């Protein structure tokens, strides 16, 4: 069964800013209303139709798109964490506020319809209708910051790939510039950008791979630095969210070459902290760029890794495609067992 894909659902969804809503509302109110010659009480009917128009504009531009966003209770923890990393920590409040206001606004509209109907002359209807427009706009003005936040939510969610949560997922993690994107590029359908400087990957990228006809999702993450949680920036929090909520298997990649951006000690420190935080997860350590150093160096690095990590260690070269199938098959076996 196809799972819901948020980024596809949110395609084309746009929340306007306060100024856009204001312009649309005023335009709707000013445009003339065509009425048949035989209509009685034209002044009243005209204003009645105008406030209906204003109501429809506001409801369709602001409240209807908000309704399409995922229910806060059903949102996957991963999405919640991504939103928090993007600066929207009160997603739940935001959504419930807007859904509540939709009802309140509907009631307001109904109240003003009755009031317009009860007016005695066109001048009075005009006054009541204008009052409705004023109240609508001040409601929107108070919502201004929330609308901006909602736009941010949508753009954050839209950037994410379509992850099938029930299917096996392998997350590739490691320090910057160790070759995570090169690996994902080599083994899966994804084509992340690869470049010779650190911090190239800024988003979570998903690729599909098949091992012995079994699907596996390989997820590329931005490089993680070993520092306390409070000091992490948005990009690193995203990477950690992927490790935490998506990884059925964690592939930790190590760069053994002597002139790396981050020395081996730091890489091992990060491995140690990931190991302690995510102790329940299956983990594989992969020594990338194994062809770039001599055999003794690889042995030495592997021995160092063994001090920290008891599981399996693979040697690969993602660039040249050496040893990749062993890693993939092992991943498949581990996933088959769980």
């Amino acid at each position, binding site marked *: 069964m196809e799972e819901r894909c948020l980024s596809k659902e949110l395609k084309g969804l746009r929340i306007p800013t306060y100024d856009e809503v204001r312009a649309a509302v005023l335009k709707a109110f000013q445009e003339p209303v065509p009425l048949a010659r035989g209509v009685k009480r034209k002044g009243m009917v005209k204003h009645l139709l105008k406030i209906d128009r204003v109501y429809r504009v506001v409801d369709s531009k602001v409240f209807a798109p908000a309704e399409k966003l995922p229910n806060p209770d059903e949102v996957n923890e991963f999405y919640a964490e991504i939103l928090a990393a993007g600066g929207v920590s009160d997603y739940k409040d935001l959504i419930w506020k807007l859904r509540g206001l939709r009802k309140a606004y509907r009631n307001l509209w109904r109240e003003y319809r009755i009031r317009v109907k009860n007016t005695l002359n066109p001048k009075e209807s005009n006054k009541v209708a204008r009052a409705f427009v004023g109240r609508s706009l001040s409601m929107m003005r108070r919502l201004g910051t929330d609308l901006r936040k909602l736009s941010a939510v949508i753009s954050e969610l839209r950037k994410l790939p379509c992850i099938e949560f029930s299917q096996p997922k392998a997350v590739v993690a490691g320090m910057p510039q160790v070759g995570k994107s090169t690996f994902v590029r080599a083994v899966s359908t994804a084509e992340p950008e690869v470049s010779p400087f*650190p*911090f190239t990957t800024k988003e979570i990228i998903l690729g599909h791979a098949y091992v012995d006809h079994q699907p596996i999702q390989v997820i590329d993450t931005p490089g993680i630095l070993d520092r306390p949680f409070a000091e992490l920036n948005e990009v690193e929090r995203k990477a950690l969210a992927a490790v935490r909520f998506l990884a059925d298997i964690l592939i930790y990649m190590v760069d053994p070459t002597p002139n790396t951006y981050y020395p081996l000690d730091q890489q091992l420190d990060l491995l140690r902290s990931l190991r302690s935080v995510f102790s329940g997860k299956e983990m594989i350590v992969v020594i990338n760029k194994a062809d770039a150093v001599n055999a003794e160096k690889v042995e030495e690095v592997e021995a160092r890794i063994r001090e920290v990590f008891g599981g399996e260690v693979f040697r690969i070269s993602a660039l040249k495609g050496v040893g990749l199938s062993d890693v993939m098959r092992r991943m498949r076996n581990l996933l088959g067992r769980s």
Partner: protein
Amino acid sequence: MKEGTIRAALSRVLWTSPPEELREYEVVFIDRGEPSGLSTLRLGGEVKVLRDRIVVGEKIIPLHRVLEIRRGGEVVWRRGA
């Protein structure tokens, strides 16, 4: 200095200044590894300006991350100036 692309500015610095003068120049660039998000690098030694990056010794900096070029603390080029 006249406005222009970062590459033109860097090339001009590189071609017009002798090595000892080159050392007075610094570039400020975006660096996610730093807590502040920015770091500075002093030019000098072997500097190469390629199509999309500069190479200073071992370090490679993509041009799209360079924000400023400074000479002795004074800004001589700034992105979007």
